[in-house]
Structure formats: C-alpha cells, structure tokens
C-alpha cells in the first residue's frame, strides 16, 4: 500500500476524559484507501522533549469526508501535545503504515481491547459489519471512566465490559468475562489489541480453544516504515518488524 507524508488539519479534538482524546483529522485532498489495524506516524511539533514521531492506530475513517480519527491516550509528552491540538492546527502524518487484520473465514467474532488498544478495534468493527459480520466487543479498563468510546462500539455490535475495580461491567480482567469462561465458546476468531499481558492471556485462551487469534502489537518504533529495524517481535521465523510485518500477527506466529 503506497505510503504518504501529508499535513492534515485538526477539525475536532473531542476530550473523552482526563487522559483520552479523539482527534478528527482532515486530509487536504482525498484520503487514500486504508485498512483496520494500520497506523500512522504523527509528527509532534513544538515538543521540547519529543524528537521522533509517535505511532498511533487508525481509530476510524470517514472516506466521504476525507477524515480520520485517532484515539490518543496521554501518557507522555508526545501524546499530551497531541491531546492539546486545537481545531485548525496542522498535524503531519506518515501513513498508512503496517499490515492489517484479515477478514475471518467464520462468523463468530470477538474483538478484545484494553486501554488505547481499543483504538483499531472500532475501525475493524466497522469493516466487519460492512462485510456482513456482526462484531462483538469485549473491552476492559481499570475502572468505569477508563471505558471510553463505548457508545461508538455499541453502534456496531454487542459490547461486553470488565473493570478491575468492578465499577462497571464484570469485575476483573477481560479474561474473567463469562464470554471467555465457557468451555465451548461460541467464538471463531479473536482480534485483540491492548497491554501485552492482556493479549498474551487472550492468545493463550484462543490457543487452548483452537480459536484463530490476531494480535496487534505496540512495540516502540523509530521510523514506522521498515527503515530502522528497531521494532522487532520474535516470531517463528526470527525477528520481524512490527511496523511492516505487523503490527498485526497471528498469535501462534509469535514466540509468546
């Protein structure tokens, strides 16, 4: 897929809570085709301490309006500066990067996300729905206010939630949700993105139940497009770049 470098314009910065924002970015012209699971590399301007770009998943696409949404969790200076972008600001992206989730060959699909890892799942959910598959989502957070953008997900399919403190949904981690506790799960495919510990547990569950599982890694990156070899994950074929061979991998392909 051809890659571009462009200045987008921020047309909305929607603050979800103290640490999450959704940025809506408008392409100067016509947005090229992009797939769920792909990401962009954001140039953070004016950061005294940021130097490299920041990789952020594509959260949603509105092809008609040539806009893209990014869901950003503010964890450091780079993401905080993104969170502080105002309407009208420019935002330079290298995009679209990486591979993407593949469509399932069966119909019972669960998308499991935690933290900012839910970002690509919305786009994937929309893509699944467009392809006649009804996605179900299992979203986990520390507490209720970490469960963000739920309404958007609800528009696409059923949403299960867990919180570590039990303030909403099932108490515990995603793996403690009943949908993942049954001995005969009605799940054919799992797509997951979130903290590595979460994904590993989900992948193990999938393996045990012979469910196909695609995980999206968030390794730290210097370039995002295969030039530096900094972002490798260990796979059955040795070190592979998360930014070009990933970020989406079949969980069984990873040396987890």
């Amino acid at each position, binding site marked *: 897929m*051809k*890659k*571009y*470098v462009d200045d987008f314009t921020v047309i909305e910065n929607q603050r979800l809570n103290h640490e999450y924002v959704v940025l809506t970015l408008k392409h100067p012209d016509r947005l090229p085709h992009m797939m769920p699971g792909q990401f962009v590399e954001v*140039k953070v301007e004016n950061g005294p*301490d*940021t*130097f*490299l*770009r920041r990789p952020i998943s594509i959260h949603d696409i509105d092809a008609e309006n040539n806009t893209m949404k990014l869901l950003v969790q503010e964890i450091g200076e780079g993401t905080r500066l993104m969170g502080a972008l105002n309407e009208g600001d420019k935002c330079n992206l*290298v995009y679209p990067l990486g591979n993407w989730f593949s469509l399932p060959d069966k119909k019972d699909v669960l998308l499991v996300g935690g933290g900012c890892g839910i970002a690509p799942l919305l786009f994937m959910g929309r893509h699944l729905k467009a392809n006649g598959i009804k996605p179900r989502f299992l979203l986990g957070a520390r507490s209720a206010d970490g469960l963000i953008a739920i309404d958007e997900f609800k528009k696409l399919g059923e949403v299960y939630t867990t919180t570590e403190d039990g303030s909403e949904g099932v108490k515990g981690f995603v793996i403690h949700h009943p949908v993942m506790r049954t001995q005969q799960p009605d799940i054919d495919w799992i797509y997951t993105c979130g903290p590595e510990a979460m994904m590993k547990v989900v992948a193990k569950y999938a393996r045990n139940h012979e469910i196909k599982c695609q995980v999206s890694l968030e*390794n*730290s*990156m*210097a*370039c*995002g*497009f*295969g*030039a*530096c*070899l*900094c*972002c*490798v*994950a*260990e796979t059955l074929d*040795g*070190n592979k770049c998360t930014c070009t061979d990933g970020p989406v991998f079949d969980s069984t392909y990873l040396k987890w």
Partner: protein
Amino acid sequence: MVDLNIDLNGLQLKNPVMTASGTFGYGEEFMDFFDIARLGGVLVKGTTLNHREGNPYPRMAETPKGMLNAVGLQNKGVQYFADTIYPRIKDIKTNMLVNVSGSTVDEYVETAKVVNSLENIPGIELNISCPNVKEGGMAFGTSCPSAVAVVTAVRKVYDKHLMVKLSPNVTDIAEIAKAVEDNGADSVSLINTLLGMAINAKTRRPLLSTITGGLSGPAVKPIALRMVWQVAQAVKIPIVGMGGIMNATDAIEFMLAGASAIQVGTANFVDPMVTVKIVEGIEKYCEENGFESASELIGAMEV
C-alpha cells in the same frame, strides 16, 4: 545553475547528499515518498558474511534530541543480499553502496569479495565502528593497528571505492583516519554512533536489551562537526560527514568543516523526505551565497 556534483576521489556523486547505513533500509522503503535516484548516494543496511538476527527487543530509546539504537546488524547475510536484494536495486540511478561489517578480519574480507563481484555497486563503506555487536564492530575502529588490519586486508580484495566509517568513541579520531588513509582507504565517513545508555528510573532497568546502544541525532551534531573538522586537518582523502544532520543548514555546516559529502541518518525517521529537501536547500544556499558549485563549500569555514 549551481553545479552540485561532487567527485569523491573518483566516485561521482550527483550531489553531496547520501543516506546513512541502517537508517534507509535498502532504499526501497522510501520509494513511495520520492525518487531516491535524486540523491548522491544510498548506503544500504549493514551487511555481514552470515545471517544475523540482531539484538533482542527493545532496541530503541528516545533521548534528548537523539535516539539510542541497538539493532545489532540484523541482516540476512551478503549472499542473500547479492541474490535477492541486489537484483531489485541494481538499476537505481544513484550510487548504491554497501555497508560492510564483520566480527573478524576474514569476515570483512569474504563479505567484501562478494560485494566486489556486484557490478552496479560502485563502493563499500567499511563499518569498523558499530557499537552494537559483541565481537568486532567498534573494536576494530578504536585502535590504529586493528583498523589498519581490516582496511589492508579488504583493500587487497576490493577494487572499487573503499570508504571507511570511523568510530567517534576514540581519543583521537584524526590519528585513525590518517592510518586508514595510509593503508588504502579512498575516503572516510564519520561519525558512527556514540556509545550511550538510557535507564527507566521507574522500572530501574535499562531501556535497551543490550544496556548500551548507539547515540545518533541532533544531540551528537557538535561532536560530529568537531571530528569532521579534526579529520579534515589530518587527511587528504575526502570526508563524508554525518551525525545529527536534520536540514540543509546542518549539511552545509559539515561541508564548511571539511566534508565533501554528507549522510543523513536518524532524520529520515522524522521526515522521510528530508534528504531531497537537503539537496534543494544546498542548491538554494549556493545560489544565495554566490557559490557556483557545491564543491566550493568544502572546508570553506573561515577561522
């Protein structure tokens, strides 16, 4: 019209801007962004005799105006390069140079031999300065005798342009430059990365799997400039300068200090189109400052 051509001791560059090894893949990664044939040269990934997996993840840490890397020369070996990569890149209309590394003198020699047989590769850059491998690498570039040993041995088997990439992790870089010049190098390139380290104070662990790694980016520019200037006082062969070049002004500073050409590394990650912008910027600077050719900038600093 400014003449941007540079004669690098026989190697003809259409302009002084090259890409630094390990930061530009095999060039192909940048084809979507611009036509890489517009550059003076491309240094492909560090290549060794045998396949290397490189170091474990994490391999990267951002530092103030710089980054540490600990890639560790991940590559599929020179034979794979010759068989699989070379056919794909051999017709790109610029100098595609191979960065060659090894753990022993023999490995350097064997690798150079293979590259020597590739018609459209007009030169190699001998990497005697990689800080990210346990054996060889930087060790060769930090003492005169070992640097001389590698260069002499490779010179015997390699006919084309032999550029030697120097390590900045030394007391006296000019001395090493002089030694490799005396033993057959056609040019020297500098600087490779400075050995550095980063710690996560929260987890109390190093940020790199290898603890230490190579520092690059604007943070190192003052050191790199100084070394280029020192080497320029010591050798007659051309110098290819690098270290923290982010724009045309930086590139021009390296040329003023004595570099005949420059390489751009880390900046490619921040702006994949930075190299063409630098070519344009050098041209504009020459126009505005009354230089008819870019080569007039070489060593033009007034002291």
